[in-house]
């Protein structure tokens, strides 16, 4: 153990660990521990019944689709923001942060209203046969909304840091725009895109407030996994709720590890780019 230049390590570290245990570890452990003694039939009913499987499938698939859409749209918008000056650019830039800033319940009721049958956009879409509210499309849309800033704000700084000389060097070697884009810029920005995608996905998996108003919540069709937890709680099936929650926690941990690994690689790539 190295000699500390500043005293008080043990108290500081001890208290820090105690608070982290109290605030984070203990509650999460309580969820998993509450599964103690659950019968296999109960567990099966909780996470493998048709409704549960449908809820997991909806949550995972919709989150994946939304994160992919965010990846494409977010990277594109980040590119535009970095590349060009144009009137209104600060407004566009500020708007990107909005989904992160506003409370999820506000997002939820607003999207449900706009895309509902009588809403500003819904009234326009539904006669064309596109129903957004109370469908899986609505779920994905809400997730696209909340995940959008994660991609933009992760990609933007990296794009901004790519030195102009890199592109100029490439073009002086005769490389056209597309080739430069593909071979020079894209590899540098790809880790950031991947990280942004992972962040967006992680957020989407656990999202509740933004989705629950527009989703419809029909078991077997438009019920997301977090809502399934609440339904089980309302039936006072605590262990069933914990079982679903544990599945989501495992997914969360997986995402956390993935994001950490990506960012480790990401910072290495950044170091190599400059």
């Amino acid at each position, binding site marked *: 153990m190295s000699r500390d230049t*500043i*005293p008080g*390590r043990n108290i*500081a570290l001890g208290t*820090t660990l105690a*608070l*982290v245990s109290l*605030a*984070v*570890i203990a*509650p999460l452990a309580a*969820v998993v*521990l*509450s599964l103690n003694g659950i019968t296999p039939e109960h567990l099966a009913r909780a996470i493998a019944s048709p409704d549960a499987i449908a809820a997991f499938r909806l949550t995972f698939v919709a989150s994946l689709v939304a994160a992919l859409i965010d990846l494409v*749209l977010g990277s594109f918008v980040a590119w535009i923001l970095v*590349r*060009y000056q144009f009137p209104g650019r600060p407004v566009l830039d*500020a*708007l*990107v942060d909005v989904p*992160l*800033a*506003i*409370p999820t*319940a*506000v997002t*939820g*009721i*607003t*999207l449900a209203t*706009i895309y509902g049958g009588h809403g*500003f956009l819904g009234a326009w879409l539904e006669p064309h046969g596109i129903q957004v509210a109370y469908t899986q499309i609505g779920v994905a849309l809400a997730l*696209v*909304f909340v995940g959008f800033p994660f991609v933009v*704000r992760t990609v*933007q700084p990296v794009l*901004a*840091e790519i030195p102009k000389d890199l592109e100029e060097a490439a073009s002086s070697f005769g490389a056209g725009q597309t080739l430069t884009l593909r071979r020079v810029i894209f590899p540098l920005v790809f880790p950031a895109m991947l*990280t942004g995608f992972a*962040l967006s996905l992680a957020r989407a998996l*656990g999202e*509740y*407030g933004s989705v629950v108003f527009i989703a419809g919540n029909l078991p077997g069709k438009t019920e997301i996994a*977090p809502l399934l*937890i*609440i339904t089980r*709680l309302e039936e006072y099936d*605590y262990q069933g*709720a*914990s079982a679903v*929650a544990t599945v*989501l*926690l495992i997914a*969360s941990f997986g995402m*956390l590890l993935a*994001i*950490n690994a990506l*960012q*480790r690689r990401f*910072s290495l790539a950044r170091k190599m780019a400059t």
Partner: protein
Amino acid sequence: MSVADFDATTIAMPGAPPEHVADGARGPGLVGWIAIAVAALVVGGLIGIPLVSVFAEAFQSGLGPFAATFAEPYAQSAIRLTLLVAVCTIAFNAFFGILAGWTISKYEFPGKTILLAIIDLPLTVSPVVAGLAILMTAGAHTPLGSWLQTVGIKVAFAPPGIIAATIFVTFPYIARELIAFMQEQGRDQEESSLVLGATVWQTLWRVTLPGARLALFNGVILCGARAIGEFGAVSVISGRVRGYTETVPLHIEALYNESSFVGAFALAAALAFTTIAFTLIVNANRKSEHDRTAAS
């Protein structure tokens, strides 16, 4: 320990947009303008329309019904409860944030990476799971919960549970700001202060914290914005008794479900306005910090 090490081991959250100089010499060109238009359409349609709608719906019946929402007793008790929860949450998380920032930046110990990862954990946990976690820890059916009830503290269906759940969800916000800042600062100032005869406490109060004021402020603002808007976790733990355990987001949900749309959106607009203002303040702070350090 440098900032780069920090980046590699925690989740980097989207921060303020970097200030950069786009290429002004070459104009966008035709393709460029079309691309800009598409981007504007995407952002405008995806984000702009909902943002405008919040306020449009809130004011659709005019200023009177909008203002009347806030005069309503249940709305007022929801606002009071939300403020109470936010203040308690910020107090706890600020205390922890200062402690964690100090511990991680001033000392060496094994497992720092793991500690940072655990602190970040609440960011990836679904808020509903967070609420469930509090219920499973201290609900009335648990040993801890029953004991707490004998000394008169009710966690589930009462403000303490809401506060605990909100603390969980917002736990990393202040800590991250302070850890990043203090790690960048290093230990030199503190070590000098100790050499000059100050105690650790004096060093903390007089040397470290004053310098970290901005980081602390940003963290508090972000934590507060998140805390007042928390919905999923509170939905699980709250019990939703009007006038008792309804926070503003829950009250918004209640109004919406009983089709009181003006009321729901009035409160929603107030919340959105507050949290967006907070975000803009933090962004401005970060930008000016960035400009300051870039210039020096």
